[in-house]
């Protein structure tokens, strides 16, 4: 308990107990909310039994005081009022600004010497890449167990950034190409965003606050793009068909009914589903490549540029490779 209330003839006696600190503000607030000031003419507050009072605790106490004053109840402290309360009044009474810009410097990079070293580095890179994928997966699993951790607002933002704003360009071009364009567009954007956050120490600041950057930065991007890319695929399909229809109708004078029957003959319905199966896989590859390279940025703006380029190249490479694997898979499956 954070509060003991006694009724007297005059009003209320409040005895504050335990720790009044930031971590306990919700409990304190609900305790204070239960204090009924209606019948009281005066409130006397004792703070001697408080074991800790910080600024947030003092703020909660101040809320009670202003509530009491608003209700016309006289408030007195048994003993001196706590210092923190006076500090609070001081802060809320005045303000003063200040100004001037900040700067920082870049370090140098070691040159790579031998093929063996490159091979070792490539191997290590592969391992780290796998670790990254693993960590993203475990974060996802944890997120599925506690959906609040999935950051729906962030996901929505990334659906918007990667999906809606890409509609005009993707609508012009077919599916594989659209995946490649998204790889260039969003893969680079992810890498650049996360990379610059690293340079600004924002990622460190998150970790130092106890926030998992995979949870707030990586996963929303991966899931956002996984939602957006299939939608883009559908739009690309629709605009492709519409474009074809317009072409046939006005250039070749072919009736639309005939076009429709030709389309159903030429395109098996599986073609559509194949695209929709591939899209989320491509999306995951693109987003992972972008986020991975972005978070690898350390200390220099030159690295940022290099890793953004690497992210785009790898995203496109992964998409083409995955498309080839899908082609083999679907051929074996006879679809």
């Amino acid at each position, binding site marked *: 308990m954070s509060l003991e209330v006694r009724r007297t003839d005059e009003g209320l006696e409040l005895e504050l107990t335990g720790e009044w600190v930031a971590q306990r503000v919700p409990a304190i607030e609900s305790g204070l909310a239960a204090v009924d000031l209606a019948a009281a003419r005066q409130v006397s507050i004792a703070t001697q039994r408080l074991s800790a009072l910080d600024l947030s605790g003092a703020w909660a106490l101040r809320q009670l005081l202003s509530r009491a004053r608003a209700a016309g109840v006289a408030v007195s402290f048994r003993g001196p009022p706590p210092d923190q309360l006076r500090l609070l009044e001081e802060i809320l009474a005045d303000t003063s600004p200040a100004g001037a810009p*900040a700067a920082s410097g870049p370090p140098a990079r070691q040159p790579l010497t031998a093929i063996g070293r490159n091979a070792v580095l490539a191997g290590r890179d592969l391992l780290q890449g796998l670790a990254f994928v693993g960590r993203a997966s475990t974060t996802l699993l944890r997120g599925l167990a506690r959906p609040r951790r999935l950051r729906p607002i962030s996901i929505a933002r990334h659906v918007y950034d990667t999906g809606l704003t890409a509609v005009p360009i993707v609508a012009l071009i077919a599916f594989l190409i659209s995946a490649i364009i998204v790889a260039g567009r969003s893969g680079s954007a992810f890498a650049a965003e996360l990379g610059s956050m690293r340079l600004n120490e924002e990622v460190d600041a998150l970790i130092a606050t*106890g926030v998992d950057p995979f949870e707030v930065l990586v996963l929303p991007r991966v899931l956002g793009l996984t939602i957006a890319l299939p939608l883009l695929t559908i739009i690309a399909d629709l605009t492709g068909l519409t474009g074809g229809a317009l072409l046939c109708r006005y250039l070749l004078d072919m009736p639309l009914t005939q076009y429709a029957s030709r389309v159903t003959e030429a395109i098996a319905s599986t073609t559509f589903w194949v695209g929709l199966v591939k899209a989320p896989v491509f999306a995951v590859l693109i987003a992972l490549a972008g986020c991975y390279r972005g978070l690898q940025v350390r200390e220099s703006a030159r690295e940022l540029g290099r890793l953004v380029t690497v992210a785009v190249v790898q995203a496109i490479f992964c998409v083409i490779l995955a498309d080839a694997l899908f082609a083999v898979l679907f051929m074996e499956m006879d679809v």
Partner: protein
Amino acid sequence: MLQVQGLVNRFGTQVVHDGLDMEVRADEVFGIVGGSGAGKSVLLRTILGLQRPIAGVVRIDGGDITRMSGAQLRSVKAHYGVTFQAGALYTGLTVLQNVQLPMIEHLELERSALQELALLRIRLVGLPAEAARKYPAELSGGMVKRAALARALALDPRLLFLDEPTSGLDPVSAAAFDELVLYLQKQLRLTIVMITHDLDSIFRTCNRVGVIVDGRMESDTLQRIVDHPHPWIRAYFHGERARARRGAAHGA
């Protein structure tokens, strides 16, 4: 409050820390000084758990953070605040949202309490209320530092780490920032660990100073450390730049 014992950090063949010991006592302002590349930032990153040391112990409030699980570390992190050199404000969020983020992560507050407690921190560091709605890119360097301080104070920590708090500020703003740090230290009874190059800042704010030399730390009170025989420490405190400032020593 904070103890580092036998810390070893190495990158490849480069030895950064070679058995570094450090102790910070409650309610003091402890300055960390060292040449460029002496490993001040690496030390801070190790203490914050951003980097695992090769050997050594880092105790915050008694617990060894190098041996903690993720969940334990998370609760330790709720008890200290950090400001990074360039501010490290989240660029996509306003100042108010920046201050609210740690609160949202660690406290279960009502929306109105969240708003008021965050605004309180912003007023506390001397930022005007209008600054709350601004994005980091719209702030001056001095305001960024103050906003970062407001965020570091979001959870009412007892322990505060400041990484080069006055770097990049003009002397007037730097002095104002030092005063703010001292004011907060007294009013909120904070223990402050401050990395700095700024001699003015050291003489004005620090009770004790630890100098990183040769991968170890020499620490003592400000009055005594200036007369330490190590050549680098002598050069640091008795060089051209230092001589003019010695008269202004704080806390004598």
